[in-house]
């Protein structure tokens, strides 16, 4: 049965994940591509399943991408990012402080407390903490880190950790809060963050987010031609087409773009610096 079906793995970070992939399944079926999906509760399980050949394509967070690259690399396998969302390119994270507070530079954070999201969130924890570290303050030593461990294993896909970090700043439990750029506006609009309360202490360099990952020696039951067809169908989806627009809206993009892997450097450095995935890598035996 596998020989005609491309199997994708995705992490169920929200209930809407089911209608999304049901919709893609219909779309691919309408275009002659057999497609099915498997949902995992956390990215580590998904990466392990990918390495074991249970899925052909993984819809990976940037951290899961790095986990795949590194664990596959240990046994000479190679990972490839075949496509990504337009909205996952050139994101930044920001560190917010009270606009009227005493913290004016990263150096002012010394001896103070910074609120972050889940410990495996690239956007709300790892990349902003790297920016602080590279500016000269070592998290945990020079600045206290207040984690908000919402949905660990889902790599910050759940917005709750960032919201809690902002609430800690508002309540005075923290002197700074880390979040992805777009959530600054979102939190003001939803009323979590009063307009004008916070100022931007620092903004990270741009980075990329999720991608569709395949392994170069993927299960031969799903030949390269199927992966190429999958990618081709994704890139052909047009926001002008009312039949696919609801799916794109649900997944939060206007266009699928080819995968690119040159904007994961900050996260690579963060993972190395903080030892984020060291224990997991030691445990995984591909």
């Amino acid at each position, binding site marked *: 049965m596998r020989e005609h079906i491309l199997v994708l793995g995705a992490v169920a970070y929200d209930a809407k994940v089911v209608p999304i992939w049901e919709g893609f399944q219909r779309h691919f079926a309408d275009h002659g591509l057999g497609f099915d999906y498997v949902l995992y509760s956390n990215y580590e399980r998904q990466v392990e399943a990918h390495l074991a050949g249970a899925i052909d394509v993984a819809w990976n967070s940037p951290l899961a991408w790095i986990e795949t690259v590194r664990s596959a690399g240990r046994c000479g396998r190679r990972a490839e990012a075949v496509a990504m969302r*337009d909205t996952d390119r050139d994101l930044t994270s920001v560190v917010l402080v009270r606009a009227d507070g005493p913290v004016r530079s990263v150096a002012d954070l010394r001896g103070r407390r910074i609120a972050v999201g889940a410990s495996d969130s690239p956007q709300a924890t790892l990349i902003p903490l790297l920016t602080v570290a590279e500016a000269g303050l070592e998290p945990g030593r020079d600045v206290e880190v207040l984690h908000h461990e919402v949905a660990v294993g889902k790599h910050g896909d759940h917005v709750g950790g960032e919201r809690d970090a902002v609430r800690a700043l508002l309540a005075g439990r923290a002197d700074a809060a880390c979040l992805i*750029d*777009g959530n*600054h506006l979102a939190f003001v609009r939803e009323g979590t963050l009063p307009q004008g309360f916070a100022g*931007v202490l620092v903004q990270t360099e741009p980075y990329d987010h999720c991608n569709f990952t395949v392994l170069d020696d993927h299960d031969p039951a799903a030949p390269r031609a199927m992966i190429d067809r999958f990618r081709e169908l994704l890139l052909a989806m047009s*926001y*002008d087409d009312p039949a696919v627009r*609801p799916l794109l809206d649900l997944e939060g993009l206007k266009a699928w773009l080819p995968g690119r892997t040159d904007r994961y450097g900050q996260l690579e450095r963060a993972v190395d610096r903080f030892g984020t995935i060291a224990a997991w890598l030691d445990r995984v035996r591909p």
Partner: protein
Amino acid sequence: MIDLEELGLDEGAHLPIKRALAAVPVGGAIEVRGRAPTLAIDLPAWCRAHGHPVTLSRSGGELRAVITRGPGRWGGAEAAGGADPDGVVERPPGRWGLAARGATVEAGGADLGFALADKRVVWADEAPRLYAQAAAAQWDPATAIPWAAPRAHPPEVEAAVVQVMTYLIENETAALIVPVRFLGQLHPHFREVMQLLAVQVADEARHIEVFTRRARLAGDRLGLSTTGGQASLATLLAEPDFAIASFLLSVLGEGTFLSLLAFLRDHAPDDATRELARLAGQDEARHVAFGLAHLARHLGEEPALRGRLAAAVERRHQALAHTAGLSEEVFDALVLLAAGGWAPAAIRRGHAAVIELARDMDAGRRQRLRRLGFSEGEAETLAALHTRNFM
């Protein structure tokens, strides 16, 4: 170049940006500048989420951005007819859904599957006028009826009033449920028809209230409900075809009730009964007028419908052949109500009035059938076949 000055995206700056983008084609660019503190964070994030590519530069304390308009969701959108009645289309597609008539509807919406989506079947050019009239003629049951007016009639006449009210409540309940069933299937494009049916339902709700209140003015017990009466009404509830249901309910049933309510108004033993019969009669006249208007239009476009309507009356007559028709209890109550007492002369007068009522009902039915284009002979036959239960 639009200058946002100090206005941030967290203060509504997306409005002037969207306004400027709307003025250029997809692929066209606008220039924006501003000095809000978090603009450099919020503007790229907003543009990314909306699919507009952006490049930023700084000039002193000012942020400058070139925003290219990306694809929008309004390509392929269509107008859902026009807002005025002359903008009603023959067959509004289900994908227009709940959109206001005259709105611009995004392409790709789900078909909401309204079964009644044919102007020929549901529309009447009189619908807007009848709706306006209906909305203006709503009355408050608490104040419109002289509930405290004195009642001097004997207890048996009061019991007759209670029996007639009990019968009316049952009939008006059917008249409430039938339009409700079609309302849920009607395409909202036919706004005035939808509104008119909704008010019709509200009218019946009010009638049920005042009939109930009148029945309980002198005591708590209501009257009798017969299987024959309910069997007759059940055939109305079961009718799935809008034209046929409307014909049976509004033209024949409610039409017949116009005579009955006029009879109650003329022979009521007390002011409260007289006034509620008058007010309910006004409402029912509108229901009949709409039924006649949309059926006349429908018949004009589809003359073969006349045969289906006639067949429906015959079918209903056969279905009810085994039932008793108007119950003896209701007939006797009408006689006693019109008599107003037990004197033989009064009973004779009341009885004659009810016989006259039946003649009046028959004449009214024949007249309305002729207005729908039935011949004199057809009208006479069909009027005679109408349920003896009146509704």
